[in-house]
């Protein structure tokens, strides 16, 4: 029996990854794809899924190779201690900024669809408070919550997708494969950003009770996300067609708003949609909050990490309110992500991987404890 509070199972980690990633990408992905590659978005999603799965495999390999070591320890063994301090500190800043923007976008949607006159500060504040509560409860609670929410979120979503197909036009998927390949490659970053968030794997990997299973669960989560994005993208295109999709800021919500359900108690399913949506986005904000808490714990080498959850809220709050408008927030986020995300998801792990193989070689050549 496990009476401690710091172990999650591999499928729970997979669930965390799934929800973390989906929350960021699900809102705007169909529009971004429609704008850039028209009706060929599905191809891009397939490519993006495969690529992300590959990156996830790298990440899980790193985590697996350093059992019982936190991310900071991994970095310090591979890249020396001062570097580790700097990198982890920067990571915390990175996650605060990323998270803050996400909170802002979320709050804007809530404000627009649910609470038109409520000050956005209240919306943000209440959400962050709840996130801090979860962060204080620790990784095990997060893991269990994620696994619990997966069916709660996915089953109604899939039903909604099915319902939204009514009245759609399959012809909207034509023409197939007419986008020139350079265009597709140019849009690879867009799709990769909608997979952003799986890097929590690097930090949470330490807490998995069976590390050898991480790779399987994480890849499965990524493939699942890919499938979900695919369904989402196809539904939106089938329903709206490319020209209309490019005009919608939040095509996913608009898609669900067209569902007609005469006679049911909830005539328009908007309530259900917003409800699920709050769950999804919360679950992509909360894990990153916990990531920061864990990183800070490593940074200050403190045993109890509960004290970090609340002090993190003010910076997050200010980042969230940084952009004057939604457009500005989006622009900031885009710029920020374009420059930093590749470093965080690929750069650092890549460096670790290189050092790892290098050291392994050294070992093979007979240098003990290199």
């Amino acid at each position, binding site marked *: 029996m496990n009476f401690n509070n710091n172990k999650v199972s591999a499928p729970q980690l997979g669930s965390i990854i799934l929800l973390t990633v989906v929350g960021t990408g699900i809102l705007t992905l169909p529009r971004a794809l429609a704008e850039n590659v028209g009706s060929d978005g599905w191809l891009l999603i397939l490519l993006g899924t495969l690529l992300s799965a590959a990156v996830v495999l790298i990440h899980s390999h790193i985590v697996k190779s350093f059992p019982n070591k936190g991310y900071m320890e991994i970095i310090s063994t591979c890249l020396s201690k001062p570097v580790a301090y700097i990198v982890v500190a920067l990571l915390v800043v990175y996650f605060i900024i990323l998270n803050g923007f996400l909170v802002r976008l979320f709050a804007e949607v809530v404000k*627009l*669809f*649910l*609470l*038109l*006159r*409520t*000050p956005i500060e*209240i919306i943000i*504040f*209440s959400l962050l*408070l709840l996130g*801090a509560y979860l962060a204080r409860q620790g990784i095990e609670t997060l893991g269990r919550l994620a696994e619990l929410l997966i069916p709660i979120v996915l089953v109604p979503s899939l039903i909604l997708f099915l319902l939204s197909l009514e*009245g759609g036009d399959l*012809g*909207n998927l*034509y*023409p197939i494969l*007419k986008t020139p390949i350079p265009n597709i490659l140019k849009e690879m970053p867009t799709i990769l950003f909608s997979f952003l968030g799986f890097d929590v794997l690097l930090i949470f990997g330490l807490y998995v009770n069976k590390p050898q299973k991480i790779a399987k669960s994480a890849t499965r989560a990524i493939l699942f996300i890919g499938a979900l994005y695919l369904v989402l993208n196809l539904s939106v295109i089938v329903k*709206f*067609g490319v*020209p*209309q999709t490019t*005009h919608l800021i939040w095509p996913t919500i*608009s898609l669900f*708003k*067209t569902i*007609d359900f005469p006679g049911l108690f909830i005539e*328009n399913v908007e309530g259900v949609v917003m409800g699920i949506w709050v769950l999804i986005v919360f679950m992509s904000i909360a894990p990153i909050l916990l990531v920061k808490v864990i990183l800070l714990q490593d940074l200050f080498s403190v045993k109890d990490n509960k004290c970090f959850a*609340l002090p993190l809220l003010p910076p997050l709050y200010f980042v969230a309110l940084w952009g004057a408008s939604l457009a500005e927030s989006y622009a900031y986020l885009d710029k920020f992500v374009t420059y930093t995300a590749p470093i965080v998801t690929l750069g650092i792990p890549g460096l670790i991987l290189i050092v790892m193989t290098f050291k392994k070689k050294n070992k093979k050549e007979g240098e003990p404890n290199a």
Partner: protein
Amino acid sequence: MMLTLIITLSMFLTACWDKTEINDRAFVLALGIDHIPPSEQPKEDREHKALEKVLGEHAPHYRMTYAFPKQMLAGGEPTVENIIMSSVGENIYINERQMKARVDNQLFLGHLKSVVLGEEVVKTPQMFREVLDALEKDPLISRKVNLAIAVGEAKEVLNVEPKQESISGQFITDLFMGEDRTNRAPVADLDQLFISLHDNSNAAIPRLTGAEEELKLGGAAIIKNYEFVGWIGELESMGLMILKNETDIFVVTINADGINIPYQVTEIKTVYTIQQKDKEIKMLIEIEAEGDIVQYFFDPEEDVLDPALLEKLEQEVEKKLQGIVMHTVEKLQKDLETDVLGFDTYIKRHNPDLWAQVGKDWVEIFPTVEVEVVVDAKIRRVGLTK
């Protein structure tokens, strides 16, 4: 922890920014939007004149008409009253605010079911696009709202007090709804219209005509490049719906040997095929119809189950359907020169290479496209007698 608890609690207890009780709202079911010609615009009062220097010139050229049921207590018993109110302003939202001064409940567009645009609005592309964008942007307004164009002014149409239903907004909505909705006007909720207009800026929008105590939904306004170019009649609307696969059940009357026979279509399907010869584009439209003979003749001389007779009747049906469809296509091609038939979409999807050549000049090419309509009608049932 205690502190956050206190903050949260106080937040819960003081917060109610968005709270408006349901009985304090006025649920607008139908909205009429009219263009006010400059001569009819209300005279500016002094207050406005003074402000104009600061605000710049704004002509209040919109007249919004709101139709909503108003709940009130009459002698202790709650009752509902049908309210129709109009207001004039520079844009839709200013009007909504202005109405606050005249309605004790808060106007609420979340249950808006139909929007009626005055003829003049669609004749000014500028206004039409303003209105459309307002409707598309609003998070409260559903994309399932029906849109119709009124012959004349929208206010007149909304002011009609229908006998069958006391709430006029509800009545207009009911005209659009239901299984057996009319096939004499195209289907057009905002969702479809937006998609169509975003696609090629053309659309067919149902026509709403008001008489003294009645309203009639039939025919359609054809929009080309966000501008009204003309009406099509009820039969033409039917042809349009057949072409766009939007109708299933309707009746056409054929005449054989002096007998008027109604043929009830139960299933109808249209398929486009493109036949290209050099620069000449030919659209082949194949229509397959299935249906019943619902009436023939009492004690007929001929057996309705006789295959030869059925064959003859089927040919009559085909001729009739072909006539309706061909007439519609011609009207749209030659008179209105507007592609609401979806030819362009079809080419875009199934022949993108051709579209690359003709897409730019499609407005000119469309009227010259040769169209051939082939109808295949089947009689499946003849009722209880033979």
